[in-house]
């Protein structure tokens, strides 16, 4: 036993071996401490995800942007896949809006509505707090939540 210990304390090979063993021991302790924590965190995350609807999961980070996700879903259902859309924002009140809504709704819609493309001249308009009269002539409200978000159709 003493011989074994002496072997571990000889320079340089014994010290290198001792160091390697200590590194492995530290790593093993760290793994045994961290693994349950990681499993807890992952379990919490799985539980939180399972409480969301598929729609919420798909919308993800967009939930903080879209105010009312029904508008984008209506747009995706009504606008043909090879069609286009425009996004117009305005100062009118939007229920559920956050500080991100007006700045990022166009970018989020660009991703969410793919393969539909953004076009300023599209007949389909996602209106976020906009004035429908300012969007164009002959504008028809296709869908609205009555709280600042609408899907409009204008003459192309």
């Amino acid at each position: 036993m003493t011989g074994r210990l002496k072997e571990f304390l000889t320079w340089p090979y014994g010290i290198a071996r001792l160091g390697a063993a200590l590194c492995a021991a530290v790593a093993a302790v760290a793994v045994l401490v961290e693994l349950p924590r990681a499993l807890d965190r992952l379990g919490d995350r799985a539980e939180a995800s399972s409480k969301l609807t598929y729609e919420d999961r798909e919308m993800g980070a967009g939930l903080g942007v879209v105010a009312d996700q029904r508008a984008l879903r209506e747009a995706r259902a009504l606008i043909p896949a090879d069609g286009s859309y425009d996004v117009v924002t305005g100062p009118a009140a939007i229920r559920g809006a956050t500080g991100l809504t007006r700045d990022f709704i166009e970018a989020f819609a660009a991703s969410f509505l793919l393969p539909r493309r953004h076009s300023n001249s599209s007949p389909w308009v996602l209106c976020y707090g906009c004035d429908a009269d300012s969007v164009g002539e002959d504008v028809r409200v296709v869908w609205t939540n009555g709280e600042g978000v609408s899907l409009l159709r204008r003459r192309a």
Partner: protein
Amino acid sequence: MSVGALIGLVALNTLFLAAGTSLVWALRGFRGPSEVARLAGLSYLLGLAVCSVLLVVELVVGVPFGAGLVVANCVAVAVAAVLATRLLGRPRTGEEPGPNAVGPVLLTGAGAALAVVFLEAMFRAGRLAGLFEWDAMSFWVPKAKVIYFLGGLDERLFLEIPGQSYPPLVPGFQASAFAFMGDADVVTVHLLFWFPLVAFVAAVAGLLAPRVPALLLWPLLLLGVLTPEVVDRALAPQADLLLDYFVALAALLVALWLVERQTYQLVTAAALLSAAMLTKREGYLLTACIGAAALIASWREWRWAWPRLAVALVVAFVPTLSWRIWFTSRDIRGEAPEAGGLGLFDHLDRAWPSLRLALSALFDADLWLVAAPLGVLAVVLAFVAGARRLPAYAALVTLFMVAGFTWVTWSFPSLPITKDGALNPIVRLTGSLILTFAALVPLLLATAWRGEREGRA
């Protein structure tokens, strides 16, 4: 998420595994079914790398995208590997450590069991994960949708989406998953990134099992993948961790090549580095770090090593030209450092804070536990034990990567000196070195354990 989507993901990743297994068979050969299984992680990541690089080149030249193209690529890679072996023969593979070096079955089993428990928990967490990652939602997934829905790199949309100069390997990977799932399922796509994570653990364990005692291998490998940052970000549909896997595995293969001189190790590393450069722009920086470290560490045998290293680096770089030509021909900017070539010297005041930030991110236990201190200690211990090439290489990789991370913050004056991931990429960057430690440190410790008596590694 549907069972069909999951089956699609499994089918896609099985194709990558099959293509990669053919490549490893052609490059190295297998001594039996157990070796096919042991090297399955390496095979998968090699298959993914080669097929994905091929897909990027095809997208750039305008080949229409679809599930058929992905299948054709995997089949073509596998057939090419078989034909090349038939016509040219297999590169001579010398003796490698045999499976007897695996060590006590109980320890290996315990390490593997902990890995399985962790990976299963990751799978459960990713199964229903929402698309909450901002960069994923902002450009990685939209680019994948463009490729999937419109059949290629639609120029107008690619120019409208943020991160225009970011390479399209990850969008192509995700678009392939969409094609196999039958829908742009942005929820299930999180699980796509579970496969490379599993493969990385399997690849490092498979490569090192015959070379490193189980007691030194599993704790260090698991420590790397259990770090909070890896746990939190591994399944995000983004490029960061995939880049880290490619880089870390390539760094390990180059380390093995420096010691064992097996051709397949360098060839495989070149393929992984090529994929890394097409995964994120940082891939160029990290490839340069590994290449420079290998060149310096092999200076005693420069006549033998340097031409081979140079060829490997050129071969890795050439496929990335396709993407560079695509985006430079469209006048996309944003690649070069904000401060310009010599602009660094106009911002000398940022040099020290940038270095301090890089070191503080690397040694932050809340982010990476004790992975970095153990990495540094392992290099020192391998030197103490009398080894030279391997610890010199590992030390140089570490030094160059830290210098590279420092340079990123220094050369982009608009980046604040902070570890906040939304403002400065330093934490994401250091992940590459942490996973490189996860791969290299067991090898360094095994070298320290054996001592000089068993060869100057």
